[in-house]
Each structure stands twice: as C-alpha cells, then as structure tokens.
C-alpha cells in the first residue's frame, strides 16, 4: 500500500473535518477488515486515513424496553450477534459472518460500507469492471457470483453486506453525520447503484460518516435471515434473504418485509413477494410462492442462472424460519 498520514480524532465533528471533500483523497477507518485489503491492493490510495475508533460515542448499543435498538456504527458485528428475539434476522446475519476475528474487528457501519467483492473490481478493473478499451468484462466473463436482479445497468456486482438486508427488513434508519450536521435515511435508500466507476455504492458524501443505525420497535416482529453458501465458514453467501413479519391474533400475516442479499448491486427489496403473504397463514406453499415471486424479474448473466433458484429457496426458508 502507499504511504498515508493517519489521524485518530475523538469527536465526530473532528472526524468529518479531517475527511476530504472528494472520494479518494481520504478514507475513514473503522474495523479495517475491508479497508486494509483495499489499501494493500491499491484499490484505494488515500493521502490520509482517519481512524473513527477514537470516537467513543459511536460504539454503544442501546436496546430499550420498547423493543427498538440504537446501534452505534462502530459497534462490533459480535455485539449484534445476540441482541435478542425480535432482532433474530440481524443476529443470524451476524452469526453468518463465521470468523470470530472478523466479528470482533468488523463494525456494523463498516459492514454497510464495505466495497463489493466482485473479483474484477478487486483486481483493479474498476467498479463497473471494464478493460482498457472500455469493454464491460462481466457479461462475457466469469460472472458466476454476479447480480441476477437490478443488473440491467452497467453495475453487475452484488452488494456484499450481510447486515443490510436484515436492517432493511426491520425498517431501520441510518443516521449520517457530516459538515452540515446530522441527517437520516431509510436503510433501503442508503444503498445506490453507481452509474460511474468514480461513484460509491452508498449515499454518503466523501466527508460524511455513518454514526448510528436505529431499528424501530421489534415487539411482535418475527424475523429471520437464511443464507445459502458454498462453504460453511469463511465465505460470503451465494444468496441470502432476510424477512420480518408481524402476525394477527389468528396467525395471519399482517405486515411483511422481504429483502434479498448478494443478488443485486443493492440489497433487493422484494415488494411483490412480501405483499403475497399478507392475510395468509404461513405455510410451505405460501413461503414457496413468495420465493418464486421474489425472483420473478430475475435476469441471469451467462453463468449465474443457478443463483435464481438459490435466492428463491433462501426466501422460502427465511419465511419458514421466522415463524418456526
């Protein structure tokens, strides 16, 4: 990696003042589990690295009695692994990160802001994976782990966050701090599909940081995350689904949220699939139908058609797991 200067501010105001106004100038360091690899591979070459771990207020996890949670962006992934019943989707997603080293070092904010694992991006071909002449490499290349949904634009990578689908399913809001102060976005709107290689995959300005994730009350919420993976440990899932359901007194579905991970450049909200569950009693058939609807608009690239079935099954199993 290139040389950089290093600062470790103690307040968020200092941190954003130390961050640059354009991408690439500076990088924010949280757990470092992704940033250090990006630095070593020269995928980011900042002049300054701003360590956020000195800002103590950002690592608290508060779970008041109303069933909500306020999770500091610098809380470790391990800290959200056993948050309790209503947060099952989140805990199961955290446990899916099977390395204790990553769970101890990695932060919740870092999980949301990690860069895609697309091997073309990681090998220096840019976020939109193009060769020197500007030809797209993914459509005719090795795209077995690439997107099956939301892949009609130039971005074909999948969002790598494990926790994002769970946060979106639980209707979380993400608090952001920048030079202009604090703002809040819905978790689903935090992720964006970049149109150029110089953009990022999330709705942060270069000198903004994620400070907190607010999960509204989970009382009465049944949630689950199901991941389909090639290996049991040390790997990203091939497809994942997080669901959050509320049921009425007769066990019929009142509200439903279904979000897929690792299938699109952003965590994919499957609205139609969720709607199909409303008013129904959860059964294997109802869950399978939701799984089918979740991938109804999927479009396989040359080598990843298998992921459509995996994503569909992930939705079905997550729904059944949520009510079991």
């Amino acid at each position, binding site marked *: *990696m*290139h*040389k*950089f*200067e*290093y*600062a*470790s*501010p103690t*307040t968020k*105001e*200092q*941190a*954003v*003042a*130390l961050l640059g106004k354009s991408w690439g100038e500076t990088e924010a*360091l949280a757990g*470092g*589990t992704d940033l*250090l*690899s990006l*630095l*070593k591979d020269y995928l980011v070459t900042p002049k*300054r*690295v701003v*360590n956020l*771990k000195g800002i103590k207020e950002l690592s608290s996890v508060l779970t008041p009695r109303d069933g909500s949670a306020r999770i500091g962006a610098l809380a470790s992934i391990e800290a959200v692994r056993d948050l309790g019943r209503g947060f099952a989707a989140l805990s199961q997603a955290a*446990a899916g990160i*099977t*390395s*204790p*080293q*990553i769970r*101890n*070092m990695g932060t919740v904010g870092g999980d949301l802001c990690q860069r895609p694992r697309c091997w073309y991006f990681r090998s220096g071909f840019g976020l939109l994976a193009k060769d020197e002449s500007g030809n797209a490499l993914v459509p005719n290349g090795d795209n077995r782990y690439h997107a099956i949904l939301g892949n009609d634009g130039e971005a074909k990578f999948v969002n790598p966050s494990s926790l994002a689908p769970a946060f979106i399913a639980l209707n979380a809001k993400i608090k952001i701090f920048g030079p202009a102060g604090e703002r809040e976005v819905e978790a689903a709107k935090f992720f964006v599909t970049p149109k150029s290689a110089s953009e990022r995959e999330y709705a942060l300005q270069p000198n903004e940081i994620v400070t907190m994730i607010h999960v509204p009350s989970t009382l009465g919420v049944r949630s689950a995350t199901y991941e389909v993976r090639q290996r*049991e*440990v*040390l790997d990203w899932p091939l497809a994942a689904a997080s669901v959050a359901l509320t049921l009425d007194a007769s066990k019929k579905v009142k509200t439903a949220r279904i979000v897929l991970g690792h299938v699109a450049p952003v965590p994919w909200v499957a609205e139609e699939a969720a709607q199909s569950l409303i008013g129904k009693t959860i059964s294997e058939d109802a869950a399978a139908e939701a799984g089918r609807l979740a991938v109804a608009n999927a479009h396989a690239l040359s080598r990843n058609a298998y992921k459509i079935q995996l994503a569909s099954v992930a939705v079905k199993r997550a729904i059944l797991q949520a009510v079991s």
Partner: protein
Amino acid sequence: MSSSDERHDNPQADQAGVSRRNFLKGTSVALTVPLIAQSEKVVKAAGADVPVYGPDKVNITLTVNGAAKTASVEPRVTLLDTLRNELDTTGAKRVCDRATCGACTVLMDGKPVYSCTVLAIEAQGHKIETVESLEQNGKLHPVQQAFWDNDAQQCGFCTPGFVMACKALLDEHPTPTDEQIKLGLGGNLCRCGTYHGIKGAVAQASAGMKKLKGGKRNG
C-alpha cells in the same frame, strides 16, 4: 532489538555460536541506516488541534505479552509486520495478509483479531497477546500441549494462529459446544486439513484448562 531480550528459539544453534535468525539479523542491522524520524503535525479540525501522524515513520508503543515495546514505523505498517519485523515476535505468521486465513491471529484485549489487518499505530493502548506468551517456565500451555498430543498440525504454519483462536474460544467457553467451536474457530484455515486433530485438541485443552482454573466454570 538488543541482544539482551532476544528469544532463544533454537538453543542448539545458539550453542554452536550463531542461529540462522541471529545471522540474518546481524546482516540486516549492518545494512540499516538508523534513521528514526518523529513525523507528527497538528491539524485544526472542528476547533480542536488533532495530531496527524506520518506518512513517514512515527514512534509507537505497543503492549505485547505484558511488556511495553517501542518501534518506529510508518502509519501504513500492520501490527503483524511490526510484531514480526520490529519486535522479534515471529509466532504470528504472515500467510494471506488479507484477513482470511487466520495464521496471524493474536489476541487484542483478550479477543482474537487478524494482526495483518490492524494498523500498528491503532493497536497502541490495547493489550496484545501472541503465541509467545503461552509457554510458562518451559511448560507448554494446555492448548499447546493438546495440539502436540492430538497431532493437530502438519506443516505448522497455521498452528500459532489456531492455538490463539483456541485459547480465546476456551477462555470464553471453557466447555464449548460444537456450534461454539464452529463459530470460535471459523476464522482459521488449515490447508493440510488437520481439523480432526484440532477438534481433539480443543476437547483435551478444554479439560486441561478447567483443571488449570480449578474446574468450576462452565460454558
């Protein structure tokens, strides 16, 4: 690296006059220009003076195995490289260097981390434990003994990392369930495939560590 605090990891070679490591160290010292520059400036940020270090070498102090150790490194240098190249603690191994294989595992404030993916400068103020801390008075730690007894290594490159991950697992769960073992050791890889031996070692060390601590805790 003064000669007084050197580890003697090859007593026979030492008796013969020079070990391979000491020979290499001797040659590298002769080639090194002792240039230690303190690189620090202050930047005004949100009304406060925030120190900014580097990009050249800065002096840092790490707490390694209970002792304060100083080194002069650039901010980009990892904890692993500082331990190995500056502080003569070569137990943690550099293998993937990308937070994947676990060979560099050390404990930071009692928790396993990949030292290849922590900057040395940010490790200041934390308690670092490496595999070198385990052996006491010539006696192997129960985890080390269990690896020996269960043939839990072949080439041995992953072993120091696995031993530290096992120690952290058993410190937290003295009698781990299969699920706890899977979650506790899921961050380490052994390309020789000695997982069966490692599982046996965890079982033996679990009993051994309980004995060491009086056998009262449960997981």
